[in-house]
């Protein structure tokens, strides 16, 4: 069964600066959401609060499965993942980077190998598995980060500006990967971007984060059943 994310009355400030102010929304399982907003509008903060990397000043982030709110514990956190804009590359091989989450989950060696190979193939890095990850280009790094997140088959996947620092070819490749996984992964995929075209093409719903609140845009996304 899929996980949905309910954000209610979320508030977060850094000093005098109010970033989120009563932010509320429910992200359903199996849908792709694109969150847009200006720099500093709070997209990354929202993602970091949703993945428990930071605590809100007030409000709640709940993960629901079949109407039941799940307890915030390691088992839940292992069903959620966030691809950070700068990825956070471990200074080891591409293989070890992608395998990291699986090893944390004590997946058997054989299964790790199989899943890492599949994930690397999906993002076009199969021939670079033995390379040191710190030597990858920024586009390859993003794709490796995506593979690292996808290999653990998350129930909720947050992608914080996955195409921000990459060239057109890599951006297209990342878009194709997201299009490819939207049906196979059956997860709630929530991404942030400044690219309106990209947001429309990959998502079911486009949201705008402005003045600390999320609002839904009625746009002609090809995947939006409401239109």
């Amino acid at each position, binding site marked *: 069964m899929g996980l949905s994310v309910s954000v209610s009355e979320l508030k977060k400030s850094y000093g005098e600066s109010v970033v989120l102010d009563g932010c509320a929304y429910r992200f359903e399982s199996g849908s792709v959401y694109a969150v847009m907003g200006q720099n500093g509008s709070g997209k990354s903060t929202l993602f970091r609060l949703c993945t428990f990397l930071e605590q809100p000043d007030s409000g709640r982030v709940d993960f629901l499965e079949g109407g039941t709110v799940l307890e915030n514990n390691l088992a839940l956190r292992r069903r959620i993942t966030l691809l950070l804009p700068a990825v*956070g590359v471990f200074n080891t091989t591409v293989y070890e980077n992608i395998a990291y989450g699986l090893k944390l*989950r004590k997946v058997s060696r054989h299964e790790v190998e199989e899943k890492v190979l599949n994930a690397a193939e999906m993002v076009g890095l199969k021939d670079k598995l033995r390379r040191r990850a710190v030597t990858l280009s920024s586009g390859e790094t993003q794709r490796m980060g995506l593979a690292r997140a996808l290999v653990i088959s998350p129930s909720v996947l947050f992608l914080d500006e996955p195409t921000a620092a990459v060239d057109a070819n890599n951006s297209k490749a990342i878009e194709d990967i997201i299009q490819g996984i939207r049906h196979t992964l059956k997860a709630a995929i929530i991404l942030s971007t400044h690219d309106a075209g990209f947001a429309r093409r990959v998502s079911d719903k486009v949201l705008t984060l402005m003045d600390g609140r999320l609002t839904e845009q009625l746009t002609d996304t090809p995947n939006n059943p409401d239109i």
Partner: protein
Amino acid sequence: MDLIFDGVRKACLLIYTLDAELMGIVLLSLKVSLSALLIGSALGVPVGALISLKKRFPLRHLTLNILNTAMGLPPVVVGLFLYLMLSRRGPLGFMGLLYTAPAMIIAQSVLAFPIVASLSYAAINGVPPIIRQAALSLGAAPFQAAMAIVKEARYGIISGVMAAFGRLSAEVGAVLIVGGNIAGRTRVITSAIVLETDKGDFSEAIALGIVLLGISLSVNIALYFFSKRGRATGYLWV
């Protein structure tokens, strides 16, 4: 100059023939310094990691200042302090450790600990916060995320351990005071060089000096290797 050339010639012969006395001194030196390094690192790395990773470490700045000051501890002062502790009238005199290799290991461990702890702290502290966030977001428990950070700092930590070894292998004051420079029991390279120079036996002193330089060179090559590996990540302290 003849004295030096003759000394070097005899020294090379001693090294080439693996002179038993010379080898005994070299092996004891390595045993003492490596044992001390092991103890200093076993304590120093976790302490450095704890200071860096524990959010609310009590008296963090004071602890760091003490460690940084202790990095420059004069070996003779450490030797004197331990001598007083281990001497027959001292509080630990009952252990009968004075003028033994274990006493020298303790002295060098005291010297190694702050170097390893302080440099481990610097290496771990230099790891970008995103590494912890990436580990957590991939499902790491807090301890596993801490281990990921320590792993990222490994080249810096190893460089710190090597730097400590460099200091231990060249150290003479502390081992001379607590070891006593007893032939076959507590005579190490540095204390033997002092003795042989006093005696005017320059060939043995030069031979030991060459071995010591060889050890230093090896440590420096290893340091260069690790700093090069670490620099690839962009957050090594050396």
